[in-house]
Every structure is written in structure tokens, then in C-alpha cells.
């Protein structure tokens, strides 16, 4: 337990520490309630935001992928002879 000495000249009103406990508990409970409300609001925002972001970015993602694959084919066709490239693709398809 705590060791401490009191100063004889200082005193407190009757029931002061019970009042401190009650007040401290009340203030902490108010903070806890505010935190819970904030956490609830935040989770709603996250759950609402995930599909919105997903459906919002998906068309852009698809376009990006299409463009990316188109650029890749163009680069390959420059590197290799186009006929060889087609032949390679054709052989792969046959497999």
C-alpha cells in the first residue's frame, strides 16, 4: 500500500475523497461513452466506404489493366518479329 505523510496544517472538507471518486468515475464514464460513439461512427464510415471505394475504383482498375496489357503487347511486338510473336501465341493456344 502507499506510504505517505500528511501535512498537519492542511485539511479537506468532510467526504472530500468520496466526492473525488464519484466525480472521477463520472468524468471517465463520459469519456468512455464519447469514445464508444466515435468508434461506432467510425466503423459505420469504414463499412460504408469499402464498397463505395471498391465500386468507384473498379472501372478505373479495369481500364488500367486493359491499357496495361495493350501496352505490354505493343512492346513485345516491337521487340520480336510480329509474326514470331503471333506464332508463339498460336502455339501456346494449341497447347
Amino acid at each position, binding site marked *: 500500500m*502507499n*506510504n*505517505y505523510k500528511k501535512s498537519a496544517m*492542511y*485539511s479537506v472538507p468532510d467526504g472530500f475523497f468520496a466526492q*473525488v471518486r464519484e466525480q472521477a468515475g463520472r*468524468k471517465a464514464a463520459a469519456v468512455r461513452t464519447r469514445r464508444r460513439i466515435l468508434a461506432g461512427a467510425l466503423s459505420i464510415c469504414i463499412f460504408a466506404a469499402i464498397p463505395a471505394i471498391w465500386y468507384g475504383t473498379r472501372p478505373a482498375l479495369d481500364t488500367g489493366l486493359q491499357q496495361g496489357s495493350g501496352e505490354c503487347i505493343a512492346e513485345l511486338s516491337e521487340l520480336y518479329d510480329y509474326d514470331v510473336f503471333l506464332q508463339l501465341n498460336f502455339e501456346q493456344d494449341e497447347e
Partner: protein
Amino acid sequence: MSLYGKYMEIVDRYSEPLYWYIRRMVVSHEDAQDILQDTLLAAYRKLWQVRDESKLKSWVYRIATNRINRYFRTKARESSVEGLEDFGGMTYVDTSDKAEIKLQKAIKTLTPFQQTVFNLRYYDELGYDEISAVTGSGTGSLKVVYHNAKEKIIKYLEDEQL
């Protein structure tokens, strides 16, 4: 145990010693009450950060010390010796105990840091390692500060007796 439960345990265990620690520093009951509530609330807000529960005591004292330092900065040391000269008018202060008044006045001649170290060591009976955790100073220098504070108090009391 829930965070709230743990917090109420801190309130039960430390609110009284914390109050007296703050009170000796700031003297006024009303200010001590405000700082104590502020300290407890700050402890609740930051309680989730506490990993090592063995350091809980020094942790709450550290919060209180920071609040006291802030008080001194904003209030420009209202509780200096000059302020104590008329503390007969203050609430919940017994001026009949002359020896105790002298001792408190002697403590008030110390610098705020010396007061903190002296009060934590003498009244709250904290170990130097605990005071080190509260103040952030090394134990070696704290021993020197405590020794100097004690010497200063003794000298003040001797001079007052002349």
C-alpha cells in the same frame, strides 16, 4: 479487468496520496482539487498505453507532476513564500501549528524541482528509482538535489529560530 475497472482501482489507490502531493505543492485546496481531477482524467485517457503495471505509481505521479508544473507556469507561482504569508485567509489551512507552518515555508523557499524531489522523497516516501521515473532525472543527481534541499530547509529553520 476492463479499462474502466482498472481506472477506478487507480482512483481508489492513488487519489488520496496524489491529492496531498499536489496540495503541498500548490497549497490551495481548490487548485489541488482541480489538478487532481485533471490528473485522474488524463490517466484514464492514457491508461491503455500502460504496459508495465509495476510502474503505475510513478506513472500517475508523473502525470500529476506535469500538471503541477503547468500550473506553476500559468499561475506564475502564486504559492510562493510571499503567498504563504497570509494563508490564514485560505480555506482548509490550519495556521495554529507554528512548527508545521515554518516547515512548509522552508519548503517553499526551494526551487519547484527541489520541492518536487523533496516532497516525493520525504512525504510520499518514493524510492529514488521511482522519483527518477517521475522526473526523468538520474538517481545520482536526485540524491544531490534532495541533499541540497534538506540543507536549505535546515538552514531556513535555523535562521528563523534566531
